[in-house]
């Protein structure tokens, strides 16, 4: 019970601790092919996912691109199904939850702030973490990535030696994942063993979103069926998500631990936090299911060898 109280307190505290990060609009999207050798016994099949970094005037947001595309496709499929359904009852199946990697990374280099947006059960959390500091060594190598003039740098971060290419013409000190701190956007990165690779996959100017909101222009998201919620985001806006619960890395760590140790209690509290709106049966299923996951014997972040 004590633990539960503590959690409440923590969650409440972060609600009032309003963030200072001004909304920013993406100007450029840098695409990456993320390749991660999760299982060293199966080198032929590393994990891959298309990722994108939204670069604004003073911030960067790193998302799954596959997820955005999947959401977009689902919206289209829904619209088609709705249009062809005479009685307004739409039958649609959605496989998977969108993209593979749900965590989004936000870097505010000017203020030296770093956040991740995590999804746990049915809530989004806006988690503040320490801004990673990497002691980069800049080399004289230059190359052109998709027409961008880039320079090479190397640095050590979380147990791996990274070689990265950054673009001084995009003077935001951001990069994919947690990599940052060079005088330009990091457009390509890989570790020395090629086990973690953020491979440059293109750059494009961020364009305004064209697609219609899924429930119509004036629909309130709260009135939509759960399957349609959370689709009408504009990834070009780099800002703390309105619905996310602000917390710290430490508190979020506790929450994750609590989920693992006492899923029932956590589910209760989360349900309470959502005004009892979450579907109880679904929640139970989510909570009781064993946490699935691929074999990861080679995480991105390795312990530092002493």
């Amino acid at each position, binding site marked *: 019970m004590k633990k539960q109280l503590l959690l409440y307190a923590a969650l409440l505290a972060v609600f009032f601790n309003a963030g200072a990060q001004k909304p920013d609009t993406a*100007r*450029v999207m840098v*695409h990456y092919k993320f390749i991660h050798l999760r299982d060293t016994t199966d080198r032929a099949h590393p994990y891959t996912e298309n990722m994108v970094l939204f670069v604004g*005037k*003073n911030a960067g947001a790193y998302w799954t691109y596959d997820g955005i595309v999947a959401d977009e496709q689902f919206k289209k499929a829904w619209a088609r199904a709705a249009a062809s359904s005479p009685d307004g009852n739409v039958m649609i199946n959605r496989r998977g939850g969108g993209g593979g990697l749900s965590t989004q990374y936000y870097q505010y*280099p*000017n203020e*030296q702030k770093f956040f991740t947006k995590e999804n746990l059960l049915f809530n989004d959390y806006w988690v503040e973490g*320490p*801004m990673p*500091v990497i*002691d980069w060594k*800049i*080399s*004289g*190598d*230059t*190359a*052109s*990535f*998709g*027409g*961008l*003039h*880039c*320079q090479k740098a190397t640095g050590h971060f979380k147990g791996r030696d990274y070689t990265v290419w950054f673009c*001084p*013409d*995009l*003077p*935001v*000190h951001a990069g994919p994942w947690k990599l940052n701190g*060079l*005088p*330009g956007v990091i457009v390509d990165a890989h570790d020395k063993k090629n086990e973690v690779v953020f491979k*440059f*996959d*293109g*750059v*494009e*100017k961020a364009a305004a979103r064209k697609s219609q909101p899924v429930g119509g222009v004036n629909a309130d998201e709260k009135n939509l069926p759960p399957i349609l919620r959370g689709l009408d985001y504009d990834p070009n806006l780099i800002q703390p998500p309105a619905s996310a619960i602000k917390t710290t890395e430490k508190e979020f760590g506790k929450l994750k631990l609590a989920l693992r140790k006492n899923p029932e209690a956590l589910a209760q509290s989360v349900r309470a936090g959502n005004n009892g709106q979450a579907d109880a049966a679904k929640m139970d299923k989510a909570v009781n299911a064993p946490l699935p996951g691929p074999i990861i014997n080679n995480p991105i972040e390795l312990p530092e060898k002493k």
Partner: protein
Amino acid sequence: MAAVTLLLVVWATRGYTQTVKGTVKDTAGKAIPYATVSLKNSTSNAIIAYTAADNSGSFVLHVPANTAANSLAIEVHSIGYKTALKNMMGFDAPVDFTLTEAPNQLQEVVVKNSRPVLYTNGDTLSYTVSVFASPQDRTIGDVIKKLPGITVDANGTIRYNNKPISALYIGGDNLLDDKYSIAANSIPQGAVSQVQVIQNNQPIKVLQNKVLSDDIALNLEIKKGAKLHLMGQESIGAGLPGNYDVNLNAMMFKDSYKAINYLAGNNIGYDVQQDLVSHNLTDYNQRIDHALPASLLSVGAVNTPQLAENRYLFNQSGVLNLNNLINLKNKLQLRVNAYYVHDKQRQDYSQQTTVFLPGDTVKYSEVQHNRSIPSILHAQFVLNSNRDKYYLNDVLQVDKKNISSYSGLITDSSAVGQVLKDNTLNFSNEFNLIQTLKSNRIVQAWSYISHSAEPEQLAISPGYNAALFNNNEPYAQLIQNVNIPGWYTNNYFSFRIPSNFITQSYKTGFSVQSQTLVSGLNVVQNNNRSGPGPDSVLNHVDWTKKKLYAEAAYDLPGKILKANLSLPLGLQQTDYADNSYALNKSLIRLYFNPQLKAKYQVGAEHYLNLMYSYRNEMGTIENVYPGYILANYRTLYANSGALTQQQIQQVGGGFNYRRALVLFFWSINALYTHTRANNISSGIITNNIQKGIVLPYANSTGSWSVSGSISKYAFALRTTFSASIQWQSNHSVQIQNNALLPFNTSTETYHLNADTKLSKAVNFSYKATLTQTSSRSPAEAAAYRVGQWVQQASVNYDPLNYLQFKLSGEHYFTYQQGSPNLKVFFADASVKCRAIKWKTDFELSAVNFLNVKTYSALYLSANTLTASSCTLPGRIILFKVLFNL
């Protein structure tokens, strides 16, 4: 904030001793917070340190230790403002920036997902091979041809921005010296990840950053997977009419062991010696200060057709080529390069030569059937150790060449047979030791020794030109023998004092050349008795040339200005004698041959280069023999006995431009050569013999050459475009038939090339060359002009991954004033089918399927016009099986 502090702590511990402060404001004077401030090296344009302005727009930039302020620039970037750059004057004054607004700064960024095709690092450019390669490219040479900024001559010489490369390394190792066509034409392109261009390549580690080198080297970066195992691309082909083409090779590119070994043979016109060309022979001869005497005899002045060699060559060649390199543990490298070539070459041609003389025109015609059987053995052993403080290189070479040539000839209605036997045996050893002493000075000992001999015998029968050779009596055979056996050695010791700005080198040494020229022209009478021919046809010249020299050289290996000045002074004594002509001469001369080379880096990637040299050159034993030698059936040649001395001055300069990241290259170069000589060769030409003799007549020759080249890769069209232009003009004097003839000859050459990867399935390439030569004598009003247009185009179509088609054509167009135009068109086609299961390719090709069997051309040099025509092999159908080891 803790992070920033940490950053500062990290910096402080890394030896940043100086700081630069400043502010960033907009045009209204308002601070621009968080702008990126980068410290750049103003020559390489690379960032070396950086920081961000704080929220009041001021910044503190930490400058790494040991950097001079004047080589630095500060650049400020902020989104929404124009980028500003200021050169740094010193560390004390604050550097303040005012940025102007540029709201649409990022508009120009467009969707692109291309991986970089080219990486640069200082002097090194790296091309990604897979971007430029297409499925029908077999060897890396096929890909190198398409790289923007790189061109490949017809003989295989590779040029980067119009400058020939010095070497082609494989994984950093020098396996082949300047015989790099072996690698270009055998390494599969799939095994190479990158082609790197290394500018200012100084391969000797001891001398790096101390002695200027403007050499350009190429390095092939072998893929990791390809390094591990034995590789081979085998092909066996057979076809009509009676054709074969076999190539079996085995290659290995480990770090410790590298090898290219192959056995090949064909009779489809591919000359196996084409791969064995030494591309930098002139440089080598200049370095050792000695050139082997050229062959003196030949079976006729055959003009080789100006076609690709495989269009006209009748051959039956075979080659075994072994190149092996081992890196031993103690940084010692052993290398063996050896080859054996055997060939039977056939050539049928007819030729009409016209020599225009004042008031007279000499014409003669020739019809020849030639057969040449070369058998060539070359072996070279190299021991090398290239360390930071120590360099050792020893090269031992042996060459044995036997060439038998047979020629049936009809000239102005008389028929003769010629047999030429030419047997060369050469050996040489070059030793080079460089060592850095404790005092940081560098000492070098260098020694070269060689022996050469080339007995030649030309037999002409029956009874050719009896009027001249046998007092109008019929006779059986004319036999000309020549041999110039000789020793040569050159040795020096040098001492170098490097310092921060300049490297001084002092060198002293000596060279000795000792040669004997023995020749005789014998007439074999009809009764088989043999005796000497007409007067003055014997030679026995003893020749020694001794040289003592000292040289001071200064190298400025700076980053912006590189320069090299060498001031050699030599005392040379030349003695030569032929007792039967009462010739006994001795000549002592003091020579000063200064040379200056400079390279000025105008920008990060652009430079100017300048050179000046003054050189004294002395004739060789081949310019002093007093008795006549029958060089070929219609040329008798002798000298006056006086030694030719030449003073050669050269001035040159050029500009080299590259923007590597957009793959744009251009260069322009000009060179003027002025040669003054105390002798002139004079000729008397008649319808059946040409007599040459050297006369003491001071004369000078001037030659201008200007060349420009441009190359660009168009990303949107996936096409490499390149073009070049060359103009050359010569002013010289000749004495022919006792008349002094000044001549102006000028040649212009234009090249145009486009190579495109239209899509994954379709490739297209087009190449055009226009060469125009004109020649005129101020004494005569008329000018002679000959031109040739060559166009080549090919289309590759690969509809499926197991099916490839290729169609190509070559068009030659020759024009000359007052003569009908000549046109030749060749067309080739091939289809290749891959049996994926068997990992084997089957290829059916038809070369010259329009079956063109003769070739005619015009050649113009000074006042000689030659119209020649020769027989071509015609259509060749070949079926080939190709597989990999």
